[in-house]
């Protein structure tokens, strides 16, 4: 009998083209997702070397980081951003690549549209010049972010030189409480692991609480694997995965589908497979989470207070906490529920799918955004998510409550377009990074779930969404 393997071992072994003596492997890449920010220099490099994409059909491109979320009929007003998006358009045209351009209803955040189109399938290797590529691991795929030199490498060779990571299992055992979401689960995991706890590992998320999540919830969890330092996060394939994938534009059909399903069903860790590290988390202990600092590991639950650096024995850590509190304009000991916010952002590749919007709408329905909120915005992850939400009437719920309803894109997740925080402004955000300046220079970001963001908008300060519902 062959050796018991983890899901990651299986995905890895199936994609090794050749190995060097020191273990470095040439790994074959099945799907290459491309966006406007990290690709121009790669295409230029390709051209300068007189090379062409190895397999054009593996590529799906979309502009997302720079696109405006307001009326698109004017095009992009920022000339630098405009040039970058046009450069993507012209590169895709020149090399004959599939691109969902800004005016296409299928346009959206790269990590939302890949799965939506069935361009992400179980068992694939998926890469993109973007760290949140880990999102696609939700399908039992090996998905990770790469730099621009690697984008060029994949374009030219369909492969990457890689060293295998170690295996980690994060098992979320039991059932979460009512109203506790995938975002709360993953923030709690990062709080426990730390932002570098997963460095050098590929993380498989397992346990009853993960199995119980929808594919969208699993994407939220895998999306943030990178915030725990792991390049890849993944969840084993089950019926939930297969049901989601079937019938999408890029998925196989007929006999090929049957063959695929037979293979996909093997994509889980074998009994007795070896993990270098196993972490258990009790699902019932997880409450709605709110970050208080400038790193995703600086997180507590809604019932807690802002922690005190004097209670931290590690000097470097305590120092980091002091810097974070100063930047965030917070006092140690303040109850989280007393922190007032200025802006609310519901969107990003972590939380902009239909279920996220439904969660937020449930909280907002029939209520009004508090007077102290300067801006509350909802940015759907793709044109198709937007359309579906409108069919369900979610846009009306948001607009009536006082939210702005926008066009799809990355938007205020990283504020490369006009959507941003001003210095000192505090934001309840469903995105994935609360780094200094991430949502605008001097802006203060608190990461939360869509329901918690909606609750903050309605109350004007953080509040337990499970009580508001």
């Amino acid at each position: 009998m062959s050796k018991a393997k983890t899901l990651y071992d299986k995905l890895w072994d199936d994609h090794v083209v050749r190995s060097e003596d020191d273990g470095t492997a040439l790994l074959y890449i099945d799907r290459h997702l491309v966006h406007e920010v990290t690709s121009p220099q790669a295409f230029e490099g390709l051209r300068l070397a007189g090379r062409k994409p190895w397999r054009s059909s593996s590529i799906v491109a979309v502009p997302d980081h720079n696109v405006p979320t307001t009326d698109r009929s004017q095009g992009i007003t920022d000339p630098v951003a405009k040039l970058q998006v046009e450069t993507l358009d012209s590169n895709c045209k020149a090399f004959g690549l599939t691109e969902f351009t800004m005016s296409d209803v299928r346009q959206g955040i790269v990590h939302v549209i890949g799965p939506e189109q069935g361009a992400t399938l179980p068992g694939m290797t998926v890469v993109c010049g973007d760290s949140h590529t880990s999102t696609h691991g939700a399908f039992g795929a090996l998905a990770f972010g790469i730099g621009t030199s690697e984008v060029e490498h994949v374009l030219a060779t369909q492969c990457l030189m890689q060293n295998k990571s170690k295996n980690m299992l994060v098992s979320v055992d039991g059932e979460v409480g009512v109203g506790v979401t995938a975002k709360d689960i993953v923030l709690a995991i990062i709080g426990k692991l730390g932002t570098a706890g997963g460095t050098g590992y590929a993380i498989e998320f397992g346990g009853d609480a993960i199995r119980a999540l929808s594919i969208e919830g699993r994407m939220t969890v895998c999306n943030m694997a990178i915030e725990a330092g792991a390049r890849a996060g993944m969840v084993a394939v089950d019926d939930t995965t297969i049901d989601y994938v079937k019938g999408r534009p890029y998925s196989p059909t007929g006999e090929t589908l049957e063959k695929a399903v037979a293979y996909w069903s093997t994509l889980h860790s074998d009994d007795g497979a070896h993990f270098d590290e196993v972490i258990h988390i009790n699902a019932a202990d997880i409450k709605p989470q709110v970050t208080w600092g400038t790193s995703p590991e600086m997180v507590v639950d809604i019932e807690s207070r802002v922690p005190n650096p004097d209670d931290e024995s590690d000097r470097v850590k305590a120092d980091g906490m002091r810097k974070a509190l100063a930047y965030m304009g917070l006092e140690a000991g303040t109850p989280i529920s007393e922190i007032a916010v200025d802006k609310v952002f519901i969107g990003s590749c972590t939380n902009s799918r239909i279920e996220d919007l439904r969660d937020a709408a449930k909280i907002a329905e029939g209520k009004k955004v508090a007077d102290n909120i300067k801006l509350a915005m909802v940015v759907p992850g793709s044109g198709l998510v937007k359309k579906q939400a409108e069919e369900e009437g979610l846009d009306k719920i948001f607009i009536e409550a006082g939210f702005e309803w926008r066009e799809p894109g990355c938007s205020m997740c990283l504020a490369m377009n006009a959507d941003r925080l001003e210095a000192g402004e505090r934001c309840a955000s469903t995105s994935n990074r609360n780094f200094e300046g991430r949502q605008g220079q001097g802006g203060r970001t608190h990461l939360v779930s869509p329901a918690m963001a909606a609750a903050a908008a309605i109350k004007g300060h953080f509040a337990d969404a499970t009580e508001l519902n």
Partner: protein
Amino acid sequence: MQAFTQHTGIVAPMDRPNVDTDAIIPKQFLKSIKRSGFGPNAFDDWRYLDEGGPDIDNAGRRINPDFILNQPPFDKATILLARENFGCGSSREHAVWALDDFGFRVVIAPSFADIFYNNSFKNGLLPIVLDADVVDELFKRIAEKPGLEISIDLEAQTVSCEGEEIASFEIDAFRKHNMLNGLDDIALTLQHADEIKAYEEKRKQSAPWLF
């Protein structure tokens, strides 16, 4: 890629953990479609007191005198010393281009984020992992003697300071070889084009839905 064999230079101490790629090069500069010119905006939010942008001339901006890289002799540093988890966050290779363009050849830290670590090798910037104790010791030595130079020998995998070897570091053989010789990864991989094609043929049989 530029080759890296040995290097001696001034070490700039950046005494903080989790220096993220958003801090190394803020997003407004990512709109560029070029690979060069990011040096003047490396650590932009920390380095200047006013807000910068791709179309703003840095010459007229207000410098933050408290920021380490604005203080001589560290403005001439070619080696950066930092704490845990350097380069975390976004995959933007612009972070490496910005450090390189500033003049850095080496970054030393107790740990690096994976993608940043990888990106560094593609651009001839050497990331060196040293024990937290050794890093701490280096911070102390620099505090006592600002402008201290250290020497890196990639072939021997050693770090020396004032004529004395203070540490050795690990690096995979494959990466070391490519860096020492300044080899182009793509050209190396294309030497195996036949194997890639053979793999594809096999996969087309076993997993036709992927093609």
